């Protein structure tokens, strides 16, 4: 038996790659969405109101402990059927919203860890110099909180890239769905799916190396902080 045919491979390649733009585009759009929405979580969690805080924390926990695939199905299939608040989105939009919100909860935690790594003394100095809340975040806190999170955020880009094929289940025509379609048409799955695997490897491996480099750079960028003030006062 001949399992593998280079002819099929060559035939499937351009067909599968038609979905590459969508796959990459969806990854980038979803990622940007998650980066922005992550901030929303971070700041919602900082609202000094106990019940509100509890709701936000619980919502994040809920989103994180539900499979992204279920969330996708809910947004695409179930949400439009809810009266009044129901909205019907395209597969691409549903994927951006579903995966974006799901991953934003993780991204929000990364921001939080970055913000918490800023010493108490920096907050106090900002206050002593009478910064407005906005300037305090813009000039003092975020410029220190964000750079150390860049490698972790980069990792999430790769993780999300690998989750994006989930969107094929609601009909987003990325490379996975293209490979599946090709497979169904020609009753040949091995070659197109191998192509999908190779494409993911080719794109995520160099990204991973890039991120490792970035991480090393970030670790040597800031001198380790000096003494911590133990007082809590934010």
């Amino acid at each position: 038996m001949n399992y593998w045919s280079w002819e099929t491979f060559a035939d499937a390649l351009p067909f599968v790659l038609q979905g590459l733009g969508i796959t990459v585009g969806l990854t980038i759009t979803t990622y940007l969405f998650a980066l922005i929405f992550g901030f929303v979580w971070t700041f919602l969690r900082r609202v000094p109101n106990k019940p509100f805080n509890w709701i936000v924390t619980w919502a994040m926990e809920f989103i994180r402990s539900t499979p992204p695939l279920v969330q996708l199905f809910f947004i695409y299939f179930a949400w439009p059927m809810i009266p009044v608040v129901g909205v019907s989105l395209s597969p691409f939009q549903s994927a951006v919203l579903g995966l974006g919100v799901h991953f934003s909860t993780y991204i929000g935690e990364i921001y939080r860890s970055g913000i918490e790594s800023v010493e108490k003394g920096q907050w106090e100095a900002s206050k002593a110099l009478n910064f407005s809340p906005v300037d305090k975040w813009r000039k003092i806190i975020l410029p220190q909180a964000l750079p150390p999170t860049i490698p972790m955020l980069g990792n999430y880009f790769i993780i999300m890239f690998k989750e994006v094929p989930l969107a094929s289940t609601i009909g987003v025509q990325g490379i996975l769905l293209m490979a599946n379609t090709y497979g169904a048409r020609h009753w040949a799955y091995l070659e197109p799916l191998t192509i999908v695997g190779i494409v993911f490897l080719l794109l995520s491996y160099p990204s991973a190396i890039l991120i490792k480099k970035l991480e090393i750079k970030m670790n040597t960028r800031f001198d380790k902080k000096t003494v911590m003030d133990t007082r809590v006062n934010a």
Partner: protein
Amino acid sequence: MKEPIVQFNDVHKSFGDVKVLKGIDLDINPAEKVAVIGPSGSGKTTIIRMLMTLEEPTSGDIIVDGKNLWKMEKNGKPLRANEKHLRSIRGDIGMVFQHFNLFPHMTILDNCMVAPIHVKKEDKLEVKERAVQMLDRVGLGDKLENYPSQLSGGQKQRVAMARALVMRPKIMLFDEVTSALDPELVGEVLEVIRDIAKNDDMAMVLVTHEMDFALDIADKVLFLDEGVIAEQGTASQVIEHSANERLQTFLHRFRKV
């Protein structure tokens, strides 16, 4: 008679069940230099942190330049101060911290320029000129483009002073600004404070363990003990001629001779 620039009226402060300050009454006149001494844990830091709005008093009033710092009025009703109210007064006060708290992501010059430009909305060139001048004054005119991590502790603390001075506060607070420094770096920092104390006319509150230094520059010394001001007077009255026994014991541990 001059109005005091700062008044504490029966100020109390507790952390949970722990009463740290038990009725502080204090007047600080404009340009007056006040040294606060006392055993560790007596509440010295807490006093100046309340004035810097980093800590809220449990009760009592702190009046800064005639305005109640922690209380405001709305439609004739007394209210707890909000951030806007605090901001309107806080600009009069500057603070130098024990651990410097310089902004590590900015050059020395930017450390000194960022607040006047963004907080006081002053002209960039004017601020730069003033910041350079101030850094020169504290002996760091040749380090403008350096980052804090490249400086010694003594240098960092001098930058922190320049950063606070560029804001032109009416009251400057110093919280044991030499106690995190290696002994050989203490002198250069005290020298700068001495220079400020002798030549600038803002009020200063210094928490310090440097008794000779306090004796030299302070108009008034407070001995804080167990949450109250146990003794106050001129430096010579408190440090050299007090009969207070606990003060004697305390001083004995700090005076070298």
